[in-house]
């Protein structure tokens, strides 16, 4: 009986250890202080009644596991439809904006990395643009730079609620070589 008792404890500890690995990696959205909201026309559909709005979102990945993160796949969806990386969205390393995050992601043990996600096909009607920015001129091709992303989201709750109806979500899979370490699926609350 004693053997079974110790065995149970051992199995329990092993289980805790195994589960502990993936939960030691954390992904959370953080308040971004560097990126600005931008509005611009879709270069492939210039005459449409809508423009593109890019509201950058920042995520922090903290690797407290005993394995290095070496790769990732970041998927986004809008209303259940999959979006395509480098077409509908772009992911950058916050501290190295020239570097696109597509498949490779180096986060050694006990390190963290902040990612910035830019959407490039999210639509906003010209009517809503006029509400946001009184200086907007019809058919202007200039990119409109608005306030800081986190500030913008707080100040424009009505518009954000409209975007929230879109049911956008993000899936972040983190790998060590070919082994999936953990997977996060988060609904984007604009």
């Amino acid at each position, binding site marked *: 009986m004693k053997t079974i008792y110790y065995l149970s404890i051992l199995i329990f500890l092993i289980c805790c250890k195994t589960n502990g690995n993936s939960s030691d990696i954390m992904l959370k959205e953080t308040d971004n202080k560097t990126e600005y909201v931008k509005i611009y026309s879709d*270069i492939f559909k210039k005459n449409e009644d809508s423009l593109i709005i890019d509201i950058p979102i920042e995520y922090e990945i903290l690797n407290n596991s005993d394995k290095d993160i070496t790769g990732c796949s970041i998927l986004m969806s809008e209303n259940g439809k999959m979006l395509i990386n480098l077409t509908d969205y772009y992911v950058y390393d916050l501290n190295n904006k020239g570097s696109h995050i*597509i498949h490779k992601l180096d986060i050694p043990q006990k390190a963290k990395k902040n990612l910035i996600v830019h959407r490039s096909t999210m639509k906003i009607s010209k009517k809503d643009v006029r509400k946001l920015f009184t200086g907007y001129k019809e058919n202007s091709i200039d990119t409109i730079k608005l306030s800081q992303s986190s500030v913008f989201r707080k100040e424009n709750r009505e518009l954000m609620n409209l975007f929230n109806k879109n049911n956008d979500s993000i899936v972040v*899979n983190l790998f060590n070589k070919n082994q999936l370490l953990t997977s996060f699926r988060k609904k984007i609350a604009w």
Partner: protein
Amino acid sequence: MSRTRIVRGTYTKISQEGHSMYSNANIITNAGAAITETGVNNGVTYGDPKKPAAIEGDYIIDGEWLDKDGNPIDTSKTPHARIGNTVFFRVKTRNIPENTPLSFELWESDGISLKIGLGTIFDSRMFDDFVPLEGKESGSKAVTANIDKDGYAIFSIDLTEYFEQYIEEDAGAYIELYFIARYIGHDMAYLPRDNSKYLQVGYSDRTLFIQSAVGDEKYGLPEFRSADGDIIIFSGGVESIDKLASADNIKKEEDSTAFDRVKDKIKDEIEGKIKDKAEEMTGKGFDKLQKTIAVHQLKKGKLGMNNGQVRTNRRLYTTTQFDNLGEEYTVTRASNFGYVSNGERVTSKGISQLDFFKETNVYSKVAKVGKNALDCLAFLDLAKYISGNGELPSIPSPVPGLDFVIDIMVTETKERIKEMWDEAVEAVLEKAKDLGIRGAKEFVTLNANANKQYGLIEISQSILDKLLKGDIRRLEQIDKLKISENRELGNKSRENPTETIKNPFVYTVLYKWQEDSTINDQVVVVETIFLNV
């Protein structure tokens, strides 16, 4: 130059003809025991021997490995070359007459060699392996090259996946290759003479592979599908205008899958059809002969039956062909099937599907996809081939480029694909692909949390061209090209604010990530290319 040969056992030389020794200095013979010299007719002669031949010695000086550009291989990096590279070997000779054939056997070095300042003191080749060259099942399995007027012989070697088996068998991460060179009547030479210059060949640095649509060597192109999931296959062919234009051209074929029929015919069509047709048409209105590229589209559903019904859920086999005036002809075939209803046999056999559907949207849609599909092969300059400025080539030849594509696509890929086959996943994937881009997106999302990752990227014609030409060896290259093209489009848009820019990213590539234990790295396999038109 001196040469010393040390033999641990007995050393015997036997000559069929004479055996002569000449020296400008001394000839010394020294034995620990007896010296025996026997002549059948005459004994030993001293003084005034027959003079040696007046020519200087002819011999192979050395050999060296060169890269694809003809420069000496960079031996500072390890390995020197990789699977997938083409290398050259150049031999320098002296006094060997021009056009003399030299034969070269390829060997893999596994031996031990000890060198000191004076030269090699110990050289064992007993563990070396002969590497019979691929495709040379019989004969010498060696390369033959002739000496040019400058005394050089040069030839190329394609380091195909064939060499991987030798790397796998070897203990290290690369193999070392050298040649044994021979020419008639002379000793063999190990080349390069310096064994530190043997060619180190490692695994390929390519991590992007393209899966062939059919999975055998007869069709080298990747799987193309329409946005709706119909399979599109290309082949070359020649038909007369009259024959093509006629819907009676539809053949009655035995039941088999459309895919089987296409794949078995592709190579024959490419290699033989143009030639045969040209011969047949010689002197019989050659001007009516049209060069064509056929776009075969395997559509699902919509099969006309003899009772007027339209059945669905079968594959149609639609061939869209273009003549050199840009006219387009579409012939639809299908796997015929039938059943008995109320005692009457209902069948699709004998029904011209082209006639049946030509009034419907199905037909025009097929034609649209067909014409756009041809752009996939733009890198082969097929537009020029098809339009041909209205001129026919003087010598009919197979479709340029298609053979080339077959070579580059399949050889490096097929063995690797076999190892990665996962039947259950692939079965679901096939169904998803039948649903087109929508299905592919759903599949990628469903597999998002699995170890085997799938992905999608939208690419332009120019990126596709590079991909099909074999210029892209890693997925990251596609990513970089896409980012760069995006940037250029942004600049173009700012420069011409009123101009509408056409979205060039009309191809959606479905790929999978997979661990490859052979190279201990992840590789990417292109599954399908969807035409987003």
